[in-house]
């Protein structure tokens, strides 16, 4: 599989601010690639470099194996769905979608066919004559998508495209985007700060933090085997377990991530095999989440640990635990994932 986008030691600086701090990244052709990180982590900067709005201060970016530095945005085979959609307010929906074809000199008849086809694809038939200001947020989002895809780019960039939508619509669009990407086979590069969205949509994703990449991998890899403390805490919830006391064998010491749903909570002392680890604590808080219940448990060493218990079956089966109750937490040592400790910058 050839690479659609490749970053080679890319730096981006604005004055003394370092937006990207030596990015090495390969995005493969045809994949749905997520870029995940908190605001200010450099994820949008990455997208702007691929689109060509900014140029790297240092390093190199390749699009389909060719250096992109000298190629202006209007000559790149890349289209963007902007965070604010950036629809042209003085044009109708049809004119918006046709814009890319018009400037490329596609003749009127073919333009019409392709625009109609695209509006049908995003289910906006019949709205072509309206202005962007007459559409709802979700409809504008689909216009932005149609306007980008009508050009049949090899790479589609999406900058937090679902951020402004409400929850139901967002979930619906997540599914639609996935289906669209599979149907078209275009490389989608998707920026988000929502870890749930990144996990559920991406084939692979990169976790960004302070202009650097913490980890690249499939959602399963990143969730199950986070390599840094940041990745462990940003992607899903994590209990960070430090094992330094002399009782622990030298090769088992270090900092580990433990997912809350792998922590077993019981009111009696558990009886497990030799790999089990258990501690005793006091329940500090119980949060009911519908599908699951979160227990925050204070441990004797002053730390706290979270256990998530699925809301399975009747309430009687779930331990009826109130704040203040003494409980046992236990987990398998194989559920501990060692985190690299070099990320304490």
């Amino acid at each position: 599989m050839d690479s659609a986008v490749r970053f080679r030691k890319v730096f981006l600086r604005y004055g003394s601010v370092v937006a990207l701090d030596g990015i090495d990244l390969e995005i493969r052709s045809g994949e749905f690639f997520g870029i995940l990180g908190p605001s200010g982590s450099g994820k949008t900067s990455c997208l702007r470099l691929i689109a060509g709005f900014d140029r790297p201060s240092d390093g190199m970016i390749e699009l389909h194996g060719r250096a992109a530095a000298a190629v202006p945005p209007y000559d790149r085979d890349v289209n963007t769905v902007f965070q604010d959609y950036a629809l042209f307010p003085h044009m109708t929906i049809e004119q918006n979608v046709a814009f890319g074809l018009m400037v490329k000199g596609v003749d009127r008849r073919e333009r019409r066919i392709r625009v109609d086809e695209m509006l049908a694809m995003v289910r906006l038939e019949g709205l072509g004559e309206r202005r962007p200001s007459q559409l709802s947020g979700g409809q504008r989002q689909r216009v932005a998508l149609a306007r980008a895809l009508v050009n049949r780019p090899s790479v589609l960039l999406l900058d937090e495209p679902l951020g402004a939508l409400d929850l139901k619509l967002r979930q619906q669009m997540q599914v639609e985007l996935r289906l669209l990407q599979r149907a078209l086979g275009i490389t989608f590069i998707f920026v988000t700060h929502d870890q749930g969205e990144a996990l559920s949509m991406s084939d692979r994703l990169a976790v960004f933090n302070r202009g650097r990449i913490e980890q690249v991998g499939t959602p399963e890899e990143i969730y199950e085997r986070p390599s840094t403390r940041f990745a462990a805490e940003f992607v899903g919830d994590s209990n960070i377990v430090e094992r330094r006391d002399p009782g622990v064998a030298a090769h088992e010491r270090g900092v580990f991530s433990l997912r809350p749903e792998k922590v077993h909570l019981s009111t009696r002392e558990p009886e497990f095999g030799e790999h089990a680890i258990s501690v005793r604590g006091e329940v500090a808080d119980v949060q009911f989440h519908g599908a699951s219940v979160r227990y925050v448990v204070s441990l004797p060493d002053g730390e706290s640990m979270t256990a998530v218990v699925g809301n399975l079956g009747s309430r009687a089966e779930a331990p009826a635990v109130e704040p203040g109750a003494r409980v046992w937490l236990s987990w398998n040592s194989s559920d501990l994932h060692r985190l690299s400790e070099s990320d304490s910058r």
Partner: protein
Amino acid sequence: MASAMQAPLRPRPGRMLSTVLLLRPKLLLALLLLPPLLWLAVVYLGAMFALLVQSFFSIDEFTGLIERTFTLRTYAELLRPAHLDIILRTAAMAAAVTLASVLVAFPIAYYMARYATGRAKTVFYLAVMLPLWSSYLVRVYAWKLILAKEGIVTWLAAELGAGSWLDALLSVPVIGGTALSVSYVGTFTVFVYIWLPFMILPIQAALERVPQSIIEASADLGAPPHRTFRNVILPLAFPGVVAGSIFTFSLTLGDYIIPQIIGSSRLFLGQVVYIQQGTAGNIPMAAAFCVVPIIVMSIYLSVAKRLGAFDAL
């Protein structure tokens, strides 16, 4: 906590007034709008109406007294060739000044809106506004000196070896003259200078409202810069251009000081109003002349509306 919340607040007149107004938003609205609406209705529309009425009176040629009976005689007189000449001359000047103002103002406004940041932006704002702080008359007289035959422009042109160019410009019939300060070119130059801020600021405001992402989107969709300018930036800046042109056009139509100080002795609309009203005492004629810019502006605005200038408002 609880006792503090229960303790009654000591009634203060200011607070009571606030409460009354908060509970009766319509009263607040009425209080806010009444003075300006009265001003608009009585002073502005009233004066306008008085003007219109005056234009339908006529003057007795012998006694010089105003006959207060309805007649269209004054308007018939307005359409005499000599008067039509003045109207056409003024409208042509206003159009030329407006066009030139757009051409000069756009790049400045574009730079201010899209590139200048921090200190540069402040400096530009000041530079644009600064002329408005000093007297208009002083600036016009300063231009008379600048454009005079012995003035700096003539001198500079000679120094740069462009004296013959200047002479060629001045020898053009109609717009030329013996010196810049007594030619239409001079009048035009000073008009453009004086009204420029009124063109720069609305265009700048319009451009400022165009999000960067829209310009990037245009490039992203394959439009090279000149296409982005023509298809995206210009249409979005157009309401600002029209707003500015309303200023420059109407101000030029009505001005009587600049053409009196700088230019040939041929009259402009404003001067005629001044003369008819002040020197000749023919108030109906002056009023009829005043109606001309109103009609010209109405035509201008309806054309602008046709062109979609107000669609984006």
